């Protein structure tokens, strides 16, 4: 009788220790995922802040590129605030495409190209763009680690019991993934 009690206690302790280990491991990665997401958000916000300057600089030189500017401005509002991750990703991709066209078009305006302010903005925006790409890469890697951990046996049995669920990748789904049309 005493032996059975001891065995039960030992098993209970081992299971409890195992659960603590699983829980802490998952929390650690989950925090890393959330921190990685915050990094993306910082860069999206940076881009959000830079765009009005760009628009006002370009407006003065390139009056014919109204459509591109409107597109950038329209998508800009989706970069921050409560928009869903998929929406932010779509907006970010759309802006990447529009900015690419805008910088390509800028080649036709020598005065704009030589503008000190424009050059700084261009460097800053393309820097921000590659930071978004890197932050996204890091975030998606972390999400993949987290989801894999949650899906493999035996963590999958307990992980969901402990209240964890799969994380969403930062990527563009469906229609928004189509290439942005560049018109010449």
């Amino acid at each position, binding site marked *: 009788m005493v032996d059975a009690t001891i065995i039960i206690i030992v098993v209970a302790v081992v299971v409890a220790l195992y659960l603590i280990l699983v829980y802490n491991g998952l929390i650690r990665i989950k925090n*890393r995922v959330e921190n*990685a997401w915050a*990094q993306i958000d910082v*860069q999206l916000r940076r881009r959000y802040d830079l765009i009005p300057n760009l628009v006002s600089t370009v407006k003065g030189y390139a009056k014919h590129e109204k459509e591109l500017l409107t597109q950038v401005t329209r998508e800009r509002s989706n970069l921050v605030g409560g928009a869903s991750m998929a929406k932010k990703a779509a907006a970010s991709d759309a802006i990447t495409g529009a900015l690419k066209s805008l910088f390509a078009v800028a080649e036709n305006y020598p005065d704009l190209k030589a503008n000190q302010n424009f050059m*700084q903005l261009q*460097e*800053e925006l393309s*820097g*921000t763009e*590659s*930071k978004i*790409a*890197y*932050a996204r*890469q*890091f975030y998606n890697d*972390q999400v993949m680690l987290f989801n894999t951990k949650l899906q493999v046996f035996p963590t999958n049995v307990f992980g969901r019991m402990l209240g964890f669920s799969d994380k969403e990748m930062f990527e563009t789904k469906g229609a928004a993934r189509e290439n942005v049309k560049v018109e010449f």
Partner: protein
Amino acid sequence: MVDFYQHITANKVKSYVLLVLFLFVVILLGGVLGEAFWGSFEFGIIFAFIFGVVYSLVGWFSGQSMIASVSKAKRIEKKDDPYLWNTVEGLSIAAGIPMPKVYMIEEESMNAFATGRDPGHSLVCVTSGLRKRMNRQELEGVLAHELAHIKNYDIRIMMLTTVLIGVVTLLSDFMLRSFLWGGGRRRSDSGNAGAILVVVALVLAILAPIIAQLMRLAISRKREYLADANGALLTRYPPGLANALRKIRDDHDTLVDSANKATAHLYIENPMRKAKGAVNHLFSTHPDIDDRIKRLEAM
């Protein structure tokens, strides 16, 4: 992934082993020298212990500044070079580490290094020649390699190796030179000081090859291959670093004037003139560059 975390743990353990070994050797030397010159073994040990602890602490906390200053590297800010700054910041985000400080050496040849005690206290340094002559992808490749060293904690063991062991080679070089050039003059003022110098120089001369071997043990070449691979994982573009290495190889000039035996192993490619002789061969801390290129191309 498992390998990666094991590598970090190994680096941390090695760093502490190195610190303990350093203290042990210093205390031993202190005891011997104390016995020889002051007739007091204990005095030597106590003095050496205090010196060893203080020096280790200084090395731990300001090793990176010491290395930056002997390498004549200048710290730069975002406004000095926005593009370089943005690239380092972007790659740090990709690596998931805080952004290191950015330094530059005014030097025509192409080279780079990173140092520090952990990712939160680190710096990355490039020569102005490398900055000027590498294109976007190549520069990213090189910086990603350096950031991988930071993330892997290679920087800690490499910094301690420089500060604690490498410095002996500098002292030995320095003593040997003053012994050879100023030998006649020094020997004439037949005092205690002269004798001490001779003994210390001899001890250092004997120690030098052992130290070289120690440095090689501390800095395995595996480290470079791993940093190449992890760097490529950051940029997702192995040809960037491969092309950068090819450019460095074909340039023949990776020599950095301010580099020395103690800091040479920090650089992405050997910054010292390739000298002949057994002792110098022991210092070949850099793996064959062609082999590195080949591995990157196979990724």
